[in-house]
């Protein structure tokens, strides 16, 4: 039941300008958000632990472009990209990093716990693999309540080795719930190369659960989108779960402060950069005449303004009152 990567589709040509603009804007927003966070940290802003998604934008955006606002996603520790792709407002996101009461989580969660259930974002989750069962549960909820929502579990190549992810795939298959598993294989779990930690290929594990598995180029938003659309259609119409492995790359270290050159070669990084998702997108849509340079520049400007606004919003917010340390333990 497994299929290898489908022949390249010239999907871009069939997409509406609206979809293309959405893809570009969301990818650009993720990158701009994180570049700003990184710059702020470099300038000494004492944000807590943060993991950057830069380089992997096409995965989150390709998948979320195939979802409806009322669909669910469950994320990983590297969650900014998933949040933005699913539509979380960058202002309270930024405020959350500042630990402000105006943050998505009232400052209680930080980068590793950003959540916005109103847009179907069930939580950034820094316990590796822990989000996968949540997506299965959300999919079960959709099925049981008779809606046609679907749920997506994002997880890393490292997470593919933890029991919770394996149990989740089997459980989703057994219950036949509309859950799509998206493995973001960026080649590393911290400093551990995927080829060391993961015996066998991840997408092939789907066969063990009787599920279709598919490998896509995670640097190509169209390839991701194409696979996601098919998986979502299938799940939404009762066809059950599937696994997509997207090969991608993180440009920076595992988390802020980590030097990746201790475990990977610069030529590998250069190679990944040469397949940058934003650059490829730009070249493709401008080349085909679907979006103009001006349109992209407009979007870039809007994105930059949005980030400025997010920082201003975050800085203007108040820190939570000290008493809040003990509130909301119970509902």
């Amino acid at each position, binding site marked *: 039941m497994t299929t290898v990567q489908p022949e390249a589709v010239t999907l871009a040509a069939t997409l509406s300008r609206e979809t293309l603009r959405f893809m570009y804007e969301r990818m650009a927003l993720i990158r701009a958000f994180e570049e700003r966070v990184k710059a702020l940290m470099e300038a000494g802003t004492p944000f807590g632990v943060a993991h950057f998604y830069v380089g992997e934008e096409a995965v989150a955006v390709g998948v979320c472009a195939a979802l409806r606002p009322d669909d669910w996603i469950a994320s990983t520790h590297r969650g900014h990209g998933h949040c933005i792709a699913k539509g979380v407002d960058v202002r309270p996101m930024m405020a959350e990093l500042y630990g402000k009461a105006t943050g998505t989580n009232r400052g*209680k969660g930080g980068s590793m716990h950003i959540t916005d259930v109103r847009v179907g974002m069930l939580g950034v989750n820094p*316990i590796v693999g822990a989000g996968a069962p*949540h997506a299965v549960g959300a999919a079960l*909820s959709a099925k049981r309540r008779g809606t046609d929502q679907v749920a997506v579990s994002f997880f890393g190549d490292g997470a593919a080795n933890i029991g919770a992810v394996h149990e989740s795939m089997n459980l989703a298959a057994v219950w036949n719930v509309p859950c799509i598993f998206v493995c973001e294989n960026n080649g590393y779990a911290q400093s551990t190369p995927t080829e060391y930690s993961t015996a066998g290929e991840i997408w092939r594990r789907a066969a063990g659960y009787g599920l279709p598995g598919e490998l896509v180029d995670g640097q190509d938003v169209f390839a991701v989108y194409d696979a996601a659309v098919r998986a979502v259609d299938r799940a939404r119409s009762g066809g059950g779960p599937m696994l997509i492995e997207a090969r991608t790359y993180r440009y920076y270290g595992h988390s802020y402060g980590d030097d990746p050159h201790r475990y990977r070669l610069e030529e590998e990084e250069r190679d990944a950069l040469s397949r940058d998702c934003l650059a490829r997108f730009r070249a493709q849509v401008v080349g085909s005449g679907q979006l103009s340079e001006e349109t992209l520049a407009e979007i870039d400007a809007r994105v930059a303004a949005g980030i400025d606004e997010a920082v201003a919003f975050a800085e203007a917010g108040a820190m939570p009152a000290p008493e809040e340390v003990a509130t909301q*333990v119970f*509902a």
Partner: protein
Amino acid sequence: MALQTSAATTTTGAAAPPAATGRAPELTFSAAINQAIREEMRRDPTIVVIGEDVAGAAGRAHLGLVDAWGGPTRSTRGLVLEFGPERVLDTPISEMGFLGAALGAAMSGLRPIVDLGFVDLIGCCYDQLVNQAAKMHYMMGGQVTIPLTVRMSYGARPPTGQTVGGGAAAQHSQTLYAVLAHVPGLKVVAPTTAYNAKGLLIAAIRDDNPVVILEHRYLGPRARGAVPDEPYTLPLGKADVVRPGRDITLCGIGRMTHVCVEAAERLAAHGLEAEVVDVLSLAPLDVATILESVQHTKRLVVVDEDTPTCSVAHTIAARVADEGFDLLDAPIKTLNSVDAPVPYSAALEAEYTPTPDKVIVAVHSIFGM
């Protein structure tokens, strides 16, 4: 023996439902659990039951095979016949997966009841309980509620008088409630009678927080008592004075409440009137009721089936040694199971948990007897 005595006690004692006297049918603890779930599922279509073999024979209805198991304590038996496999969901053996899925479902519109089988199995899903379910509401700044109930059986056997054989041993007899009660954000209750099992379980199901219900595997089939047919709730977070007394307070948790009641009855025969407090809610802990009792008894023995270090018994003692120090006339005694794994052999298991005899020895030591 402790149990027979105390089962009788709880039918007629302070824990019995005032409204139910004489009229409510007698049920076992397990049957009361079953009734609670059934009534709530009728009321609320978002309730689902999740666990291994909670129905049984999954996928074999076409062969006439259905309702084959009913969970490890058989307390979900029959539910699949009324509510179908869409609401009574058998799972593969994947505790982390299905508990996490129940949590995900609780975040997105369902109100799941998970049957984990044995408290011993929390080892296979502790992350989803401790790091996920318990913390979600706080960590997400109040955006989500977690209406999740997790049922677990616990406990070793009381002394059986057996001269050979044994019980369920180290990995299927634990109590372990300390490692649940420790966690901020989890409510943890240990019902002791059929009556309060039903009332606390319904309260847990309706609560918007994750609640763990610990059901003693020995009480399940044996503790019987009057249980009104209609749904009712008992407050989470409240202890219960199940026997009044003026001379000493015995604080019992779970099956140990029955042990305390038996000890109290034997002490009464010798003129010593022990008040028995049934802790019921391990988190939050109702220290006020305990302090109130100590206020007039001035003495406290806490009896806990869990092992001692970092136990609920120690927390009760510590709270009273702080907030109630000036009330006390004597050292606070805590009685726990032996600080060891649960042994298999009947000869050793008999020594393992606190008994009425041991409670009486502790009480006597306080009175210098």
